[in-house]
């Protein structure tokens, strides 16, 4: 086990190192001079020199890369050009909101996708199957930014069923201030029993979460259907049928659990994808998450901030995968031999 752990850990570190190098390389392609951008247009020559020293821009590239890594390890992710605050602080502030949104979206996706997949498998080749396949295909093909605009226009602006934008009614900050523990508004409101903010947050969540849920829901429905169909053609299903179980029972009682393996494997994959997809949605709904931060950063050509977002999402992805593999290694000895 320790050997496996070390090997897998080494691999992950290698990937993280690569991710850092790649991010660094991309950011060094920037045409602008970070020192000028940081010191500001009013900077004197001395201030500019100081900024250059601070950023180590006079050093050779490998040294700059080393400094970059060292700063990252010390928790210094650079200073955002547009908020003038440490990128790390900005990310800590924005990330929980994104997590809230994507979390809600994934819950919707699983809650909708699995039953739809089951229904499609149960009535394979018939109308329910066709309509589930059709709608799941549409769900994975729809451009999210467009869907966001459409839902906002129809359900928020037109029908007035949901709030237009924002995370919750900001005036509630005054009447029922929220104590922060996880920084995720809905979670904190729930654990502190802050109902006004909880209900406000949930109603603000519905539309953007639905938009982000479209893609994972479609994928989950397709995977569930495919896995169920495969599972129900296996020997154990034949046996169950012979024992007199109905088709629905065969599917839901016996085939569903093993069929969910590949479906759940998607969740980790789809998680990072959804966070990035959320970027496009957050801008439309003015959701105060990573996406809005990234969109603002893009409009401000704020490279430290963009690098920070990129790095955070990529590292998160790597770490999550690593954790999965390690835990899996504990559960299943065969994995270690791989």
């Amino acid at each position: 086990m320790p050997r496996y752990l070390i090997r897998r850990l080494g691999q992950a570190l290698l990937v993280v190192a690569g991710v850092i190098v790649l991010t660094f390389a991309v950011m060094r392609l920037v045409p602008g001079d970070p020192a000028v951008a940081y010191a500001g247009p009013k900077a004197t020559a001395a201030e500019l020199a100081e900024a250059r020293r601070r950023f180590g821009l006079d050093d050779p590239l490998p040294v700059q890369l080393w400094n970059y890594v060292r700063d990252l390890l010390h928790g210094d992710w650079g200073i955002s050009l547009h908020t003038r605050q440490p990128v790390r602080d900005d990310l800590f502030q924005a990330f929980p909101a994104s997590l809230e949104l994507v979390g809600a979206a994934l819950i919707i996706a699983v809650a909708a996708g699995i039953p739809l997949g089951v229904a499609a498998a149960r009535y394979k080749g018939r109308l329910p199957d066709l309509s589930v396949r059709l709608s799941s295909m549409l769900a994975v093909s729809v451009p999210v930014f467009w869907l966001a605009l459409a839902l906002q226009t129809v359900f928020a602006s037109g029908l007035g069923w949901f709030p237009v934008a924002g995370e919750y009614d900001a005036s509630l900050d005054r009447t029922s201030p929220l104590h922060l523990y996880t920084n995720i508004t809905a979670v904190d409101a729930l654990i502190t029993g802050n109902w006004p903010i909880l209900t406000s947050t949930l109603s603000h969540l519905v539309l953007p979460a639905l938009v982000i849920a479209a893609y994972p829901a479609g994928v989950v429905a397709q995977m569930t259907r495919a896995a169920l169909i495969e599972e129900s053609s296996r020997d154990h299903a034949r046996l169950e049928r012979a024992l007199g179980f109905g088709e629905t029972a065969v599917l839901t009682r016996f085939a569903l659990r093993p069929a969910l393996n590949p479906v759940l494997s998607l969740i980790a994959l789809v998680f990072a994808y959804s966070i990035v997809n959320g970027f496009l949605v957050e801008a439309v709904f003015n959701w105060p998450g990573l996406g809005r931060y990234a969109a603002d950063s893009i409009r401000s050509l704020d490279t430290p901030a963009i690098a920070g977002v990129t790095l955070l999402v990529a590292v998160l992805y790597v770490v999550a995968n690593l954790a999965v593999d390690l835990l899996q290694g504990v559960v299943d000895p065969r994995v270690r031999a791989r």
Partner: protein
Amino acid sequence: MRWHKRLLAAGAVAAVTLTAAACAGGKVRGAADSTPQPGSSASAADSTFVYVPNLDVVTDWDPASSYSNEIIAMENIYESLTRYNPQTKKAEPRLATSWTTSSDGKKWTFTLREGVKFHTGKPVDAAAAKAAIERTIKEGKGAAYIWGAVKKIKAKDPTTLEFTLKYPAPLDLIASAGYASYIYDTTAASGDLNKWFNEGHDAGSGPYTIDSWQKGQETELTLKAFDDYWGGWNGPHYKKVAYRVTPELTTAWQLLQRGEVSFVQRLNAQLFAQAAGTDTVQTSQTPSFQNLLVLFNTAGGPLKDVRLRQALQKAIDYDGLLAAMKGSGVAASGLVPEGLLGSVSGMTPKQDLAGAEALLKEAGYGPGGKQLELTLTYAQGDSDQELLVTLLSSALDKLNVKLQAKPLQWTTQWDQGKSKDPSKRQDIFVMYWFPDYADAYSWFINVFHSEKDVQFNLSYLKNDAIDKEIDELPALTATDPAAAEKAYADLQNKIINEQAAVAVPYVQNYQRAYAKSVEGYVDNPAYPNVVFVYDLKPGA
């Protein structure tokens, strides 16, 4: 076994992210209000005025150098000696209750309001006002040039402030400027005052003071009532002002329609028309002194060639743009909008594609010649500028000119324009300009006078003859208006026709939409986009 692995996967993702998120726990959001005052429950929330700008609010908190979008907040935090009234076209009392001028116009005496306090607790007296104006002049940033005529300031007694001028100038008007005219407490911080300001502190005397400021957040800024404001808080007033940055016009409009916000700075023509027909919303349309400048890089890049700049002037579809804007602007004639001394007629530009093509050909470009590639920067989220960009890039495309247009946040666009390295500057810079007080001088001294370090001369024009003529404008305006008029006309001819440093496509109409419950709103075009919230009544 894969089943477990995937469950673990989901769990691990959740665990990793939760730990990441949990690091900053234990705080209270809206901490300034964490101890609810008695009687400040639901009604307190109702008297918040929510202003929706489409760009970030604050770029500079220092009242000496502030010269950008933050004016919408600054004018509610700080006060100047006078305020311009667009109806009477005169300056009215603000911190000064009355003023007199000597017969030669070179000595001005202001009587200050008594019993006024800064938010720091210090009294606003003549000495403090003198210190503030002198600091602003000394810093010499932003619009500090407005005090250019001032030779000496004297605090004769706590309520009497005396200015001695180098040449006659309308100081009551100058003191009403939207920028650089603020009176503030120069002793507010023990250390570096500029740094203190830019940490999000204020030292004004206005009705509101900074409550919280979070750069980059949706609700970037909230202001709260200053209890000791000289005007008092009797009668209905908004007790709080929130600035909620909403880049998307549609979102802004929907927020207003649903009553979540009070005031939207700007809508496009279609939404404005819809707003006019909506019961819960009021609209106001006011002609402004704000025009759009398309500034060409005269100092570097391909546009150094004046023929190319002239070709660009001719390529803009001015009439088409106005038609597509559907009422949010009117045709411009020259640099100075109608209603100000110095505006000229007969300079309304027209598109001339054949002329543009001929000029391009002469310079070796155009259809059949080399492809010309140009970069343009403009304000993100401004649909009128977007129309201009669409029309211009389409027209240029026919002329074998490729336009690389980038929508940016103002600060970024501006920083890039001011870049010390000329190769990093854009070829075309699109921005609005408006006077700092009701006078045309601002367009010339700020935008077309040469500068050692670039601030707003974003065409990078450097022409000694033009500089000299601009420098003579203030004195001329005060002594010989007819000659000033001629000088303005001559300058506009030189800048637009001879140098082709700029194209002026339109003068904006301010189109505001605000909640029906807001009572008493008047647009004051001398303070662009500013809502004087204290003057409003929160209605039902």
